[in-house]
């Protein structure tokens, strides 16, 4: 409106000057008067925006309801409220842009909309942008109101996995961790043994001592007697494919679900991210699961270095020797990484004194139903055949449910 009024002013002045007509010049008074009256009318002001989210932490695929409460005290005109959304946060219901008219009375409105994070991560919904204009559109205000909302989208942890619990010997066994690094004593009785210097008095079995004539103590199982270390490839070959379905995204979900199960059995669980140098030492408890998920999410969008699997294993040598863990390597093995994978797996086997074969979970980007997928698939089959002897190999094809892969894998681990 302001532009068109200025246009009228110029038009009248130009025509008046061209024809030396004071009457035409005088016409400029009309748009100028409208501008003057408009300048005296205040746009809506005294704005308060309160925002809240139904949840601050959601599993992927879940929705969050954002509630907005707006109060405008003074002025007359249009109030436009806009909540910008990050690209990976989809609007599923309602609208994040709303317009209201503020009359003579104070305006108080409440509305909500629902959003769904499409990818894992921490999202910040910035403050609301509020633009107001007076009824003539000659004055407007702009401001940022309300508070930022932070939403954490975490991967889905499959807590109930149908595992085929056949009464047969497990094909993959988790080796016992060396005595020195085990955790606190549990209440599970293990055996009676001879007293050793330093044993606490409360462990002495007095009845057995009296019967046998030598000091005997009760031995209990220690917590965290088994250790699992996940080595997850965080390099670029894991970050291809469709958004939300990249091998890395799927790896996060798989590692989180497996860790949940292992931690419930009081195992020590550790994590190493190849390409980032990030290592979480083996530990037990639900806090470790939280840490692992957070770490994997942190490095989701970070460009990784060129560190190879074999180099990562070299770096972890001390830990692998100390804990003798079951190593689970999650990667998308291709021709370029074949050599380093073989070397790394061989080193792990040697460090574990051949007690347990490491597990290689190969996460594919392409299915065999596309021309490029067929070629990659042929290549993969040849590579994995070569690696068969060094590791227990599990393949995860695109479209295959995480629960199915987990069920297959956990059924084999004893």
């Amino acid at each position, binding site marked *: *409106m302001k532009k*068109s*009024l200025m246009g*009228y002013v110029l038009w*009248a002045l130009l*025509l008046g000057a061209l*024809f*030396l*007509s*004071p*009457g*035409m*010049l*005088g*016409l*400029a*008074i*009309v*748009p*100028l*008067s*409208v*501008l*003057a*009256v*408009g*300048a*005296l*009318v205040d746009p809506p*002001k*005294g*704005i308060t925006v309160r925002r809240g989210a139904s949840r601050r932490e959601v599993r992927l695929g879940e929705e969050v309801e954002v509630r907005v409460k707006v109060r405008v005290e003074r002025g*007359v*005109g*249009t*109030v*436009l409220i806009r909540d*910008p*959304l*990050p*690209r*990976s946060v989809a609007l599923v219901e309602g609208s994040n842009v709303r*317009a*209201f*008219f503020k*009359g003579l009375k104070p305006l108080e409105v409440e509305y909500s909309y629902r959003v769904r994070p499409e990818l894992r991560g921490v*999202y910040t919904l*910035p*403050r609301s942008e509020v633009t107001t204009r007076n*009824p*003539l*559109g000659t*004055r*407007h*205000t*702009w*401001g*940022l109101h309300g508070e930022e909302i932070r939403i954490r989208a975490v991967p889905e942890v499959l807590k109930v996995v149908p595992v085929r619990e056949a009464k047969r010997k497990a094909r993959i066994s988790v080796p016992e961790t060396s005595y020195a690094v085990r955790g606190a004593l549990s209440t599970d009785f293990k055996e009676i043994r001879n007293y050793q210097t330093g044993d606490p008095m409360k462990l002495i079995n007095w009845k057995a001592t009296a019967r046998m004539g030598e000091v005997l103590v009760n031995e209990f199982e220690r917590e965290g007697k088994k250790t699992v270390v996940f080595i997850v490839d965080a390099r670029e070959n894991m970050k291809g494919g469709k958004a939300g379905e990249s091998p890395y995204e799927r790896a996060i979900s798989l590692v989180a679900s497996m860790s949940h199960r292992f931690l419930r059995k009081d195992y020590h669980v550790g994590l190493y991210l190849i390409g980032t140098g990030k290592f979480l030492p083996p530990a037990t408890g639900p806090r470790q699961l939280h840490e692992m998920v957070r770490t994997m999410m942190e490095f989701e*969008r970070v460009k990784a270095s060129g560190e190879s699997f074999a180099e990562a294993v070299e770096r972890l040598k001390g830990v692998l020797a100390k804990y003798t863990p079951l190593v689970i390597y999650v990667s998308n093995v291709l021709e370029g990484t074949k050599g380093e994978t073989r070397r790394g797996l061989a080193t792990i086997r040697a460090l574990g004194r051949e007690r347990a074969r490491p597990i290689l979970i190969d996460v594919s980007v392409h299915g065999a139903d596309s021309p490029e997928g067929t070629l990659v698939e042929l290549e993969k089959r040849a590579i994995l055949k070569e690696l068969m002897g060094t590791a227990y190999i599990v393949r995860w094809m695109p479209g295959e449910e995480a629960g199915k892969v987990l069920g297959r894998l956990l059924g084999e681990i004893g």
Partner: protein
Amino acid sequence: MRFGIAKLAVVLSAAVLTGLAYSSILNGGYAVTVALTLIIVGVFASSGSASKAVFLAMVLYTVPYTIGASQFLPVAFPTTYRQLAGLILKSSYFSTALPVFALLGLSITADYVEGLERWEKVLKGAGGRNLPYGIPLILLAFALALMVTRLGELGGGALPGAFVLPIALLALGLVVSYASIEGGSYRRVLVAVEVPPVNGSVLIETPDEERVLQVSRSAGFEWRAVRLEAELRGRPRRVLFRGEGRERILSPLVESVDGETLFLLYRLGEKVNIQSPPKKFW
């Protein structure tokens, strides 16, 4: 529907007024009035734009009006002017400035109504409700313009007197509007800087402090333009963007005060919807 009726009322008034004015100088009776009215309403019906139709009516009207009121034509073409002016100024529609004022008022109203209609389409309900508040304001401004012109005419000099009051009012409005910003009645300053997602930094300088806000290219994963916010106690003296080996001083695009807060928006580059996807992926 509400807009359609308002637009038609404005167009019809302008068309009839122009038709009557032309009819008075062409001695064509109602035939000229009806013909011109039909032409102008036809323009409105075919284009759907009231402002175009009213502007056409106004241009048609201002041709004889400008000839009649011109001080240049009597000197340049005295004989032709005498014949034309005799015909034009004889008509009651051209001997006074009231009809052209009315036409300009109608043209502004048409523009306003169409502007609101566009808003209504986007805002769904909030645009149209401005109409009952806006029309009285335009009428008030129109009455004010007429009153000032009349005062100017009574004062003797048509031009200087006519300009004094609206310009004084405009100045007063601007003073009221910006008084709060310039007067420093705010206690808090919220600075928002919108920059493209490149590696760099934004430096905000105030008389008391210097604040550096980092911009990283990885922010472009989620946002088309990154909005950095800083809360300050005083108005910034200078806002600088450093990135890609260059340094640019930014000037505020929007500044407005609400309560005790001064909002300042700085933007680098073209206006973008910060959440929309880029036009081209690379």
